[in-house]
């Protein structure tokens, strides 16, 4: 078992290289890279910052092109410049943004608190709502509660999150003015007391969180419900009744743990939600999160940022998958990874 998880951890290395190499290669072949951008700007006669200044008719000399390529590492073959990039990453150096010239790590770090706040809230709220709701729906299958919550949950699932976001913001922030229009905190946030600060973050978070959660409730809730119902009708529940347990005791002591197994399985992979963040929702609510940063970086061909976000999110995803397996092994004694004999 331990051997299995050690192998899984070691497998992160080739997987990580595979993912990053693929995206690295794509950044090389997709048109509109940083050098082409620079050239366009120069041709348009624009100021390009202190580093490079156009000369004469707005075209670059060959030497200048070479200099630019060297600066961005485009002068070497793809694999060797990937190796250079990887070596830097191993030294915790993600390079500099081509747009802002700032270190990539600094830019990403700035967005961390916001993204983690939303990611963690989404994760916690999803489980805090879906598990009890799914259990209640399973226990009282066919009840009014069951049908109404299904309707709500599926509506949220069917509507794209940006539609929900826009609807929420126009109703509750525009029409009724109950919540702020957007942003993470108010402009005068620093002047508030601790309690005021908490309230401020909360009021800013309500609408985006609803938009985030609306779509994620359906899957987990229904998974929980179906899983509980399967277990309620299982043979071992009849055994529990035949022993003299009451219905509620047998649900609590037998069906519950079994029905949590599939939900626990999904937990690890949801860890990557922590840093997810949809750029659509972040755009609508004017939140400076990782999602928006990544989207802008792709549009603007700010490849160091793109690669930086990729490094962090792929590591998180790979670790999350292993965490998933650990969760499953913890809750289900039948699962023994790696062919070793369990005792």
């Amino acid at each position, binding site marked *: 078992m331990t051997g299995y998880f050690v192998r899984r951890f070691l497998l992160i290395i080739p997987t990580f290289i595979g993912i990053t190499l693929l995206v690295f290669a794509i950044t090389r072949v997709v048109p509109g890279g940083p050098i082409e951008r620079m050239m366009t700007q120069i041709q348009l006669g624009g100021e390009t910052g202190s580093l490079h200044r156009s000369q004469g008719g707005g075209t670059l000399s060959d030497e200048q092109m070479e200099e630019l390529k060297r600066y961005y590492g485009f002068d070497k073959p793809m694999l060797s410049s990937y190796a250079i990039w990887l070596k830097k990453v191993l030294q915790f150096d993600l390079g500099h943004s081509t747009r802002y010239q700032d270190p990539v790590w600094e830019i990403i770090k700035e967005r961390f608190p916001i993204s983690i706040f939303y990611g963690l809230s989404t994760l916690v709220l999803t489980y805090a709502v879906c598990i009890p709701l799914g259990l209640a729906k399973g226990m009282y299958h066919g009840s009014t509660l069951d049908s109404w919550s299904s309707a709500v949950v599926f509506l949220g699932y069917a509507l794209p999150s940006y539609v929900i976001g826009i609807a929420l913001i126009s109703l509750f922030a525009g029409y009724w003015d109950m919540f702020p229009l957007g942003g993470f905190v108010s402009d005068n946030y620093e002047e508030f007391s601790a309690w005021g600060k908490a309230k401020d973050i909360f009021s800013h978070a309500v609408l985006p969180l609803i938009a985030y959660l609306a779509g994620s409730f359906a899957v987990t809730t229904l998974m929980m419900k179906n899983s509980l119902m399967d277990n309620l009708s299982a043979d*071992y529940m009849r*055994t529990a009744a*035949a022993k003299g347990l009451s219905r509620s005791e047998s649900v609590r002591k037998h069906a519950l743990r079994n029905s949590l197994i599939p939900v626990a399985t999904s937990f690890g992979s949801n860890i990557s939600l922590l840093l997810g963040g949809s750029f659509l929702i972040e755009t609508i609510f004017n939140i400076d999160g990782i999602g928006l940063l990544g989207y802008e970086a792709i549009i603007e061909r700010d490849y160091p940022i793109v690669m930086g976000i990729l490094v962090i999110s792929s590591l998180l995803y790979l670790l999350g998958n292993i965490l998933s397996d650990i969760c499953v092994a913890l809750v289900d004694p039948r699962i023994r990874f790696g062919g070793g004999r369990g005792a």
Partner: protein
Amino acid sequence: MSLLSIQNLSVSILGDDGIARELVSSISFDIAAGETLGLVGESGCGKSLTAMSILDLLPKPQASRSNGKVLFKGEDIGSTNQTRLRQIRGKNIAVIFQDPMTALNPVQSVAQQIGEVLRIHFPEQSRQQHGQRILELLREVGIPAPEARLSAYPHQLSGGMRQRVMIAMALACEPDLLIADEPTTALDVTIQSQIVRLLKGLQAKNGMAMLFITHDLALVSQVSDHIAVMYAGKIAEYGKARDVFATPHHPYTQSLLAALPGIHHQAKSPLLALEGQVPAIENMPSGCRFANRCRYVAELCHNKTPLAEHISETNTVACHRWKEIRS
């Protein structure tokens, strides 16, 4: 007074169309203390429904007891409250099921699952006492190296071992009556006889009564004092096991015995082989339920349900023509 008395028990099944239809119909039988009643019949004839209705373990809402009384030591446990019923379940009457694979909780250890029934019915005893008792039970049901099995999960045990664990669980509170619903059907033939021998041995030791359910007539002949032959939700013939095997009166029992290899019956002939199908629950005949397969069928059989008639003091048969058939 008998230990368990079932009187006019009927169980209805709720169809997909929302109509409840009586499958088990007006069944009566008694089990005396320490005795074994073998309930035998083809699969689907309602044996499990009959057995599960005793402790109100029917799969709800698909199946429900629609009529009849269940008397245990004279107490009407068919209409008692849930609290009282829970005291009886596992303590006075225990059940073992057909499939030990699914009847045990897959994520609890052997010790947890046996310990639970002790905790329910002997909450005043200490954990140590329960631990002692669990080991003693595992030893009693013939599980080798019981100490090593305490922390085992069901998937780590063979089918036969799992059924032994089920038996240990059922015997934990030394019940007066054990309901064994096809306890060996899911097991290998060699394991089957081991389990049957184990059950007989434990029964003799504890002096408990047993309702032994099976579709296997040969098996029921080994274990039972009395047998009840069931067909399509009704009891065709009931009596002392020896009598029923020696002189079966119901045409259905006769066909079953004739089909049995190795048992010599004077009227054994290929003519007795059963043809046709058990009637579906949607169109149960209003007369004798065996009529479409019976070679003695007469006009009367289609119109009138045959009631149980006494052949002797203890034995009964439900056939209009049993007297003619005998001669």
